[in-house]
């Protein structure tokens, strides 16, 4: 009893317990779960979301939020598609253009947040609507596919052994993200600003620059994820990636990152990503519909904050009573 309460106190401990339970359940329920193919598949189906979740963790730890990521993903994918459709540039240049467009989208929003001091919730809400609108301006109600063979292969076929490109990118980015957040000065700045932006400013941190770079990075990574999504799906519509922001934010918050900024670890985010992917996979193998999976993950999101709160409240009440007698 004492042990379980102690591990509950650390968020990662709780997530680890949940993850082990989910994996154990999956192994018990499905014979195909423990295969390399299923494991790659489990990542591949949400790979774009988890790539964006890494940078979203930084943005939220910094005390901001970026609701526009899914729209930037769709916008970038549409840029690639439209340039390809009109044969305006070589395909690789179209991909580069889409990444630049994503970074610019982040730059504009970051300017309003960092330099003008507007709330990121409002700015990126405008971005969510606006960039999706720009995707719609480009692609209208068409569906554009017919990409070069190599592009589709990068999205759909394994690149290194059984591992596809997107998964390699994710692993590489995750390693960089952990190092930056734990050990690099930039990572410290991100956390300190999220804790208290005024204190950070007085200690000589260039708050505006850190915030601006985070939004540019967020736009860039979202654009990259959008291009990867286009490659995996093989076709692009104006609605590509719509609604992904909720899943991405859920992954980060379930990972124990505080919505108010200043605290959170990438280990927690990694565990929460694994939980969500394994749950979806397991529920899918158990023939639970995708819709119900979404509801279950929504409930998990709330419970993950509610249960520790209640446990802490009970413990405090008990300690309080013990102190009086």
């Amino acid at each position, binding site marked *: 009893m004492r042990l379980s309460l102690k591990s509950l106190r650390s968020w990662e401990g709780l997530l680890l317990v949940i993850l082990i339970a989910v994996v154990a359940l999956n192994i018990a329920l499905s014979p195909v779960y423990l295969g390399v193919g299923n494991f790659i598949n489990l990542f591949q189906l949400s790979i774009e979301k988890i790539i964006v979740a890494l940078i979203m963790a930084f943005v939220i730890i910094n005390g901001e939020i970026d609701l526009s990521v899914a729209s930037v993903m769709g916008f970038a994918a549409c840029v690639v598609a439209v340039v390809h459709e009109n044969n305006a540039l070589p395909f690789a240049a179209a991909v580069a253009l889409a990444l630049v467009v994503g970074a610019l989208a982040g730059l504009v929003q970051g300017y309003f947040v960092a330099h*003008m001091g507007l709330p990121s*919730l409002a*700015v990126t809400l*405008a971005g969510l*609507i606006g960039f*999706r*609108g720009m995707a719609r301006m480009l692609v209208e109600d068409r569906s554009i596919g017919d990409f070069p063979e190599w592009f589709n292969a990068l999205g759909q076929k394994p690149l290194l052994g059984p591992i596809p490109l997107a998964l390699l990118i994710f692993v590489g980015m995750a390693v960089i993200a952990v190092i930056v957040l734990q050990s690099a000065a930039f990572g410290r700045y991100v956390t300190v600003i999220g804790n208290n932006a005024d204190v950070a400013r007085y200690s000589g941190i260039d708050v505006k620059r850190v915030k601006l770079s985070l939004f540019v990075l967020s736009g860039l990574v979202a654009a990259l994820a959008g291009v990867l999504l286009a490659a995996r799906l093989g076709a692009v519509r104006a609605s590509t990636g719509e609604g992904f922001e909720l899943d991405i934010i859920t992954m980060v918050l379930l990972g124990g990152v505080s919505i108010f900024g200043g605290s959170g670890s990438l280990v927690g985010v990694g565990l929460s990503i694994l939980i969500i992917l394994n749950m979806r996979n397991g529920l899918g193998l158990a023939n639970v519909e995708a819709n119900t999976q979404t509801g*279950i993950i929504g409930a998990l*999101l709330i419970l993950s904050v509610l249960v520790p709160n*209640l446990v802490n409240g009970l413990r405090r009440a008990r300690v309080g009573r013990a102190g009086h007698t």
Partner: protein
Amino acid sequence: METLRRVLRPEQIRELSLALIIFVAVAFFSTQIENYLSGRFFVRVSTSVAITIVLATAQTLVILTRNIDLSIGSIVGVAAYVTGQVLGANPELSPLAAITVALIIGAGLGLINGLLVAYGRVPAIIVTLGTLAIYRTWLIDYAGAKTITADSLPQWLVDLPRLNLFSSGELDIRGLFVLAVVIAVLIQLALNYLPWGRRLYAIGSNPEAARMAGLPAPRLVVSAYAICGALAGLAGFMFLARFGTITVTAGQGLELQAVAAAVVGGVSTAGGSGTLLGALLGAVLIDTLNQSLTRMPGVSEFWRDALLGLLILVAVATDYVLMQRLRRLWIVDQLKARAAPTPAPEEHHAP
């Protein structure tokens, strides 16, 4: 200008400028679109804006307490579907009873949000992101693949959106539009003059001070969420009446529209500041643009969202910059006005 600045609070100047923007937009569109200033167009905008006003009012109540409700789109969907189903099974139900059903469904779902936020101490954005998914999932599971269709609904409900309260020539004032405006006005009056309303502003603008002053913050937050949910339920009823056909995706994305209307209307997402008149004007501006852009020659309907996003950004940015300047000027003016009649006391006591 000096006196004008002293009489008007900065918030009122903001509302006036929003009204001016709406006026300019309408004037602009009337030069671009044939037959724009017609009764028919007014009817079209007012029909769609009625729902947005109710939702913007609902969202504003919660945002005032420094929280947010992202689940109202799902609440609209659940309320519309279930009320439609109840009416389909009991066509003899009176209109008042049908509205009550929608209100109770909405208030119940809002209550769940409020309890989790206030007593579970779970951040609002986490709770309502979760319930956004949960309420919608429940609806999809519950409905199977069935759709509510207009021919299963009683005739009075199908006719309700076209019910005029008042009509002269081509100009019709729809009952639902008037209902939405009346609700916004009544709740604004409650916010201004009831202790409950003042306390909502208080806990939003400084939760710590409000707690020290002994305000029952959790109960107030729960009440804001419950009323927000009830209004979303009412919006669901209006949605059902307007469209007649309700699928499981009904109301999806309306939460963003409501937040957008509130934010454009000057309601601060940091809580404690903003009025329902502002939110109402924000809703009118957004819907007017939405409806006008679809009819604008040379502007494809695919441009609408891009322009809407740009509008929200411009509105929030200019609002923020203007408000800071105005508020500073206003405070200086107030201090001057107060200081002017009595000379500084130090001079009298100087030896």
